[in-house]
């Protein structure tokens, strides 16, 4: 499996930040951003904004796929691809 070069711990920090600390279970690389972490759409948008700032990428919501949310690692890989372009 391809590993994300975006630091997983940093992503988890940003996710925790948008959740406002209200995390019911530990977040891992395999946590689903919606089903496990419980991010709602507004929190997800705020996460994307933080990620754009942190990793200097530009996320186009018009091409965003639901698959990118299936785990923290998948989300990291998506951001990594944006950082390369």
């Amino acid at each position, binding site marked *: 499996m391809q590993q994300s070069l975006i630091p997983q711990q940093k992503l988890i920090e940003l996710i925790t930040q948008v959740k406002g600390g209200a995390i*019911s*279970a530990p977040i891992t690389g395999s946590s689903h951003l*919606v*089903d*496990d*972490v*419980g991010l*709602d*759409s*507004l*929190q*997800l*948008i*705020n996460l*994307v*904004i933080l990620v*754009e*700032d942190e990793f200097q990428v*530009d996320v*186009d*919501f*018009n091409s*965003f*796929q*639901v698959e990118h*949310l299936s785990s923290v690692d998948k989300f990291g890989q998506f951001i990594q691809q944006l950082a390369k372009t």
Partner: protein
Amino acid sequence: MTRGIHCGTFESESHWRDPQLARLPALPDTGGLIMTQAMDELLFVFCEPEDRLITAKPMNEAHLEYLHRVGFRFSCNRFSLPAGGAADGRPHNVFDLMRQPCVELSSYLQGGGRLEPFAVLPGTAEMARCFELQGRFPALEVIRAVNTKTYSLEMRQRLGIPDVGCVVTGLPGLVDEGRRLLQQGPFLVKDDYGVSGKGNQLVQSMGQLVMLIRHLARQLDQGLGMRFVLEPYLAKESDFSCQFKVEESGATHLLCVQRLLNNGLAFGTSCTPSAGFLDKLEGSGYFESIMRVGAELHRDGYYGDVCIDSMMLTDGTIYPLVEINARKSMSLIKHRVDYHLEKSGLRGCLTSVAAVRECAGSFSDFLQGLQDQNILFDGRRDFGVLPLTSGPLFDSAQRGRLYFAAVCEGDDRRASLMSTLSCAMAKAGLRVLA
């Protein structure tokens, strides 16, 4: 008395919306449409015994049998409506489906009736004519106009509410007004037809404003227009809503007030308010404001169901009008559930849980699981879970939602009921989502 024909499509705003307008950032929700379509089952609560419900997909037989057992009397279709139907690229609604050739539907509607839609959408009046159903509805242009956030803003101005926000129709306006509002604090950007929880964007920083502008600029470059309402984000203590009906004659009938425990900006739970809270509303002149809104709506050509979203601010001030929903609503559904429960001296809260089906059996198994946990409302006890839907969880993609009434008195008993429900769902192979 003429029987009612109840049907509808939820998230009506997406059917009124101008597709040529730019959208706020949103994440893909592929399973959401299937789930939303299945919510039409909730409309059984509006049925009297002689009435007929029409749902896009037939209701689950075990669910129907259960609802009849606990006292809900209504007829419903046992066939699926034909797929497809909208001609102009907009999303299909139930009226588009009903206008497709369907022998079973023609037979089911033989004898006519009075059309009682959840909301008046494109195709509602045409469908009524097609089946010779009774029902008078305002022009669709009026419905579209009074359901915009722009209209709600104008109504706040008419009521004399200060600092109501502004409308922006281009990026320069968004930049200027956004900067101005941010100097005072966070603000909301509202899509003119935003659906609860989906069409609003909270902007708390210049970074968020810049990101939003970049997102919208891409769409404007493709030729889309823009119309958003910008409002200061007020410090809110709680949400509530008022349901009323404006008759064609202009008479306005108040139906109920419900407290709302929302999930962020989306619907969460609808509960009965305390007598003290209603007294506070009375004392603040809230109901005079509501009657005024009813009169203004009628003056502007609207009649029918209305739900006004309101809030109480942290300083105790009542903010009477957040937005106008000129249609039926989740809180009106809650009111109708109470109407049935009150026959047994009971009341409930309308709420929902999101879940993933991991190894779930049938809906019948799920009901049996609730029964085994002793929390299935049976119409005799004053405590239990009354499932109001099956399709949005069991016929949706893997992820769905169960809508139900929590029948009990007191926060402690409700918390206990919810906790037992979570256990019952886990045992039934349904993972409750965070």
